[in-house]
């Protein structure tokens, strides 16, 4: 890609990819494949402070801030969750705090995650999004650089 996609465009890409699958069996296989390919998080980051609550599995999320953008890393001991995390990171990684705070994350609903996943599970997914937005807000307050373009 010569030009990076914005959040909405990235979400649309994911929605289009999911539209190629006929069955939830195939969608889950795809999500699991994404999960297996997510690079593991260094054990030093797997601490209680980095845990995301609201999931039956263990989820850790770390955020770094550089040149006005957030860089996320995450991991889980459950592979479907890893797949979901990798999609969230694909959408929200290397973005400015404002972009993340304003992101609507419609793709989660569009690919059927909120209706197909039980409320208990979609709560975990939404907890992750919330946590990522909290990081964005925290970095924005700490380092209020006006975002360019």
């Amino acid at each position, binding site marked *: 890609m010569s030009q990076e996609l914005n959040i909405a465009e990235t979400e649309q890409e994911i929605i289009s990819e999911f539209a190629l699958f006929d069955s939830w*069996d195939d969608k889950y296989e795809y999500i699991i494949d994404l999960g297996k390919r997510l690079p593991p998080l260094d054990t030093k980051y797997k601490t209680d402070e980095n845990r995301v609550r609201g999931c*039956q*599995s263990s989820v850790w999320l770390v955020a770094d801030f550089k040149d006005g953008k957030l860089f996320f890393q995450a991991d*889980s001991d*459950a*592979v479907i969750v890893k797949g979901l995390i990798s999609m969230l990171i694909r959408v929200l990684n290397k973005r400015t705090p404002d972009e993340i705070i304003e992101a609507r994350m419609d793709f989660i609903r569009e690919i059927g995650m909120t209706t197909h996943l*039980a409320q208990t599970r979609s709560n975990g997914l939404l907890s992750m999004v919330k946590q990522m937005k909290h990081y964005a807000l925290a970095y924005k307050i700490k380092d209020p650089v006006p975002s360019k373009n």
Partner: protein
Amino acid sequence: MNSPITKSKSLDINVIRQEFPILNREVKGRPLIYLDNAATTQKPQQVLDALMHYYTNYNANIHRGIHTLAEEATAAFEQTRDAVKSFIGAGSREEIIFTRGTTEGINLVAYSWGRKNLQVNDEIIISNMEHHSNIVPWQLLCEEKGAILKVIPINEKGELMLDEYKKMLGPKTKLVSIVHVSNALGTVNPVRQMIADAHAVGALCMVDGAQSAVHLDINVTELDCDFFAFSAHKLYGPTGVGVLYGKKAILEAMPPFQGGGEMIKEVTLQKTTFNDLPYKFEAGTPNIADVIAFKSAIHFVQSIGKEKIRRHERDLMDYGQQELEKIPGLKIIGQAKEKAGVISFVIEKAHPQDIGILLDNRGIAVRTGHHCAQPLMDHFCIPGTARASFAVYNTRYEIDELVKGLLRVVKILS
């Protein structure tokens, strides 16, 4: 329909399944395979009918009314009390208290018996395999009273280390509260002997019968337990109803749990006297409809016969274990010599949550996670298990489907 006719020795399971309308539904486009009965059981038509019948024909508040509807409702409500008394072999109806469930029953004992009878440095014994409902009320009580909570360890098979239990018992032990059948492991504990051991040192014994009331024959008089708690909804009955059994003399000496209407004799602003048993512990309007419908659940079980149900479940357990053990990387957690109702397992490289999600996608309902028994999971150093739990309407075919589903899970996740 969704499963072939299954005859299990003298039980026609397909006929039984027809009593359960929910078994006809589909999940994610496939026939429902419900293997989460330890969490709650499905309800036979007669239980559903009893609920509708009550509300359609004789709904009224009970115990005080003198009009016809009130008398009919009261009679039906009290008939359930008698049915429960026979079901668990209690001595008298005064010993049967209706609660919201097992958890409330345990809390009632902790609050009402515990606060009056426990002193600083007294000891309460529970085990490492308890459900949170049989841990937390005692933790709260011990913290309040300065008492000590002791925990019977378990071995790698998920059995209680009974020698350690005997060593823990002493003059300071005031109560032992123990699960009869573990909801996470299926282990059946030798409660009759444990009760006798507790009594020998002057301690009382409470039994958490949430899983055992449906799977085993319960006779509280023979067990000689001082308290026994269980829930209707795990026994093909409605949610929101449970039973606390307590020996009459003990209940009589206990202060009330909740105050309010029904549990009083006379109220003045200066002083209030309390009602007789069992009403002393049943404040406010109870869950009338569901208590009445509970009787139909008891009749359902008794009409089939617990022994026949048990034999069928035994067959499912044996077949289930045998088939699951063929799955590569699968390990059954809880290998006690005596088990009932549940098979908990883990699969290498597969988080229980992933197993649960993928099975659900095939219409198969199992439970995953810590099963409200976090200390137990810590003991086995696992985040949780996947758990299949059986009821009278489950079939070998459903186990075959579970196995097929799990083989696919293993394939995708490896």
